[in-house]
């Protein structure tokens, strides 16, 4: 009985959480334009989507920004973490606290403050400002996934490499970097995901005439919801879900190895 209640609770929880998304996905295959009636299965909305130039343009923008933001934020985040190896733990946790603020901060506050900063610096809104904004909010995510590896690292391994005649750079690439790679990969995937599905910060920093998928959907919805939007949202959901599942896979596989060590 207790078991049954547990399962019931979990099922209800999942239904409440995922009912809206399931509705969306179901409607994206609905032949009828009505939201209340099932008109049979169709892939028309997905096909229409592919031939929609505005969507294609927004998709390219979204991907370009996500990829570039991921690359830059991963590089900056990784180097910051490596530099923090040399700091004492007090200074290290202070810097971690400061870099975490954009992550905890409400997106709308981050978005508006970035917009104001760009205005103040006379940086024209558009592609560049979105990219800069995305790099900014991605860095903490990258650092957050690399830092735990640095905290648990056995630095004797680095000294051992030096001891065996390796130059500092060679010793670093052979000992510290391999340990960081899983953290870097999951950080990059996390950054990519965050960048891909961001709306609020993008909205405030994009200016006019430049659309990403999320801002495009928002504009379309204002004009009246088209079933194509369901299809587009469903695709974004599936892509983000897949990426997140990969992100959570990466560190868990590594912790397994760690426990084997002991």
């Amino acid at each position, binding site marked *: 009985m207790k078991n049954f209640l547990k399962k019931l609770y979990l099922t209800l929880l999942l239904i409440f959480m995922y009912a809206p998304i399931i509705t969306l996905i179901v409607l994206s295959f609905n032949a009828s334009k009505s939201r209340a009636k099932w008109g049979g299965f169709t892939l028309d909305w997905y096909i229409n989507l592919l031939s929609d130039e505005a969507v294609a343009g927004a998709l390219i923008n979204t991907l370009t920004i996500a990829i570039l933001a991921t690359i830059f934020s991963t590089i900056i985040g990784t180097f910051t973490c490596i530099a923090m190896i040399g700091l004492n733990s007090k200074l290290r946790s202070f810097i971690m606290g400061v870099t975490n603020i954009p992550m905890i901060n409400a997106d709308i506050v981050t978005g508006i403050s970035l917009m104001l900063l760009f205005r103040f610096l006379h940086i024209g809104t558009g592609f560049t400002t979105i990219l800069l904004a995305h790099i900014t909010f991605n860095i903490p995510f990258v650092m957050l996934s690399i830092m735990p590896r640095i905290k648990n690292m056995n630095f*004797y*391994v680095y000294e051992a490499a030096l001891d065996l005649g*390796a130059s500092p750079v060679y010793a670093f690439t052979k000992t510290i970097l391999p340990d960081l790679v899983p953290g870097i990969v999951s950080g990059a995937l996390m950054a990519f995901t965050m960048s891909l599905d961001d709306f609020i910060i993008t909205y405030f920093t994009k200016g006019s005439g430049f659309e990403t998928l999320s801002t495009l959907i928002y504009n379309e919805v204002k004009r009246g919801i088209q079933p194509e939007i369901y299809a587009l949202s469903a695709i974004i959901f599936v892509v983000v879900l897949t990426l997140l599942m990969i992100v959570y896979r990466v560190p868990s596989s590594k912790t397994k190895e760690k426990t084997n060590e002991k």
Partner: protein
Amino acid sequence: MGKDLITLRNICKAYDGTTILDDLNLSIYENSFVTLLGPSGCGKTTTLRIIGGFEKPDKGQVIFDGQDITDLAPNKRQLNTVFQKYALFTHMSVAENIAFGLKIKNKSDSYIKDKIRYALKLVNLEGYENRSPESLSGGQQQRIAIARAIVNEPKVLLLDEPLGALDLKMRQDMQYELKRLKEELGITFIYVTHDQEEALTMSDHIVVMNQGYIQQEGSPETIYNEPENAFVADFIGDSNIIRSTMIRDELVEILGAKFACVDKGFGNNKPVDVVIRPEDIELVAPEDGTLTGVVTDLTFKGVHYEMDVETCGRELLVHSTKLSAVGTKVGIKVDPFNIQIMNVPVSEDEEAISETV
């Protein structure tokens, strides 16, 4: 003894204002097994890391084979280290670990292969080439770490508490293994440990350290039998340290009774510290003893009995294979050779400094 291979001159090192090493001078002879022994925080590991090049001394020089290597990077030094926590490269196989240093030196593949086989044979792990370090036990990992260091043919092998993470049985086996390796390789070993038994078993030369100062140097026998101060006496093995009076040469008054001894030159009627090892106290019939006492505690230790004997308001620790039951009145006798006289330190600072070599 051979010639000096490593000389430390006036080494000083402090971290955040705390002095770790203060004007340390030490010579290490070629082809010797030297152990730096002391409690944690005594500066032994820092000394080793300065020799390895992982720390720079604030002051002083490190001379290696006649050359000043104080500012030389660790990867340029002709010595290798075995670290406390193995520090194996976990993403490489055993063979790749051992080959690491040789590949950097651009040795040929066949040379590297031969060396790996030779090194694995030396540490009794033949056939482990393709294993992952993580699949090995602690003792095996430490052997791989040793193999990885010695294939580079260093003149000196530094060992930083290499047996610290192993269990007792494994530790004892490895002690003999290390001694054998040292003989086979014919190189200098500098070994750091806080375990006095390890130091006595393996070393040719022991350097006892405390609070950044060398307390005493010498062979294991000298350190054990003739400790120069209370710290060394107390740290190496069990001992009874008793504040006494040196009446004149070869006569000392301990707990009110006069004992013959063999030490001279401490002056007349001067306070001294006397060290008597628990196994050197003989329990005899009360009328035959220089002092009399009562057994207050008895513990069976396997090889011997450990007894507490109360005499003149003091407890003395006695090891004997003969049992004297609790409550027995006993006489206490000590052979003159087994009474070790030490100067009384005037201040605590002097206690730390008193390195009369």
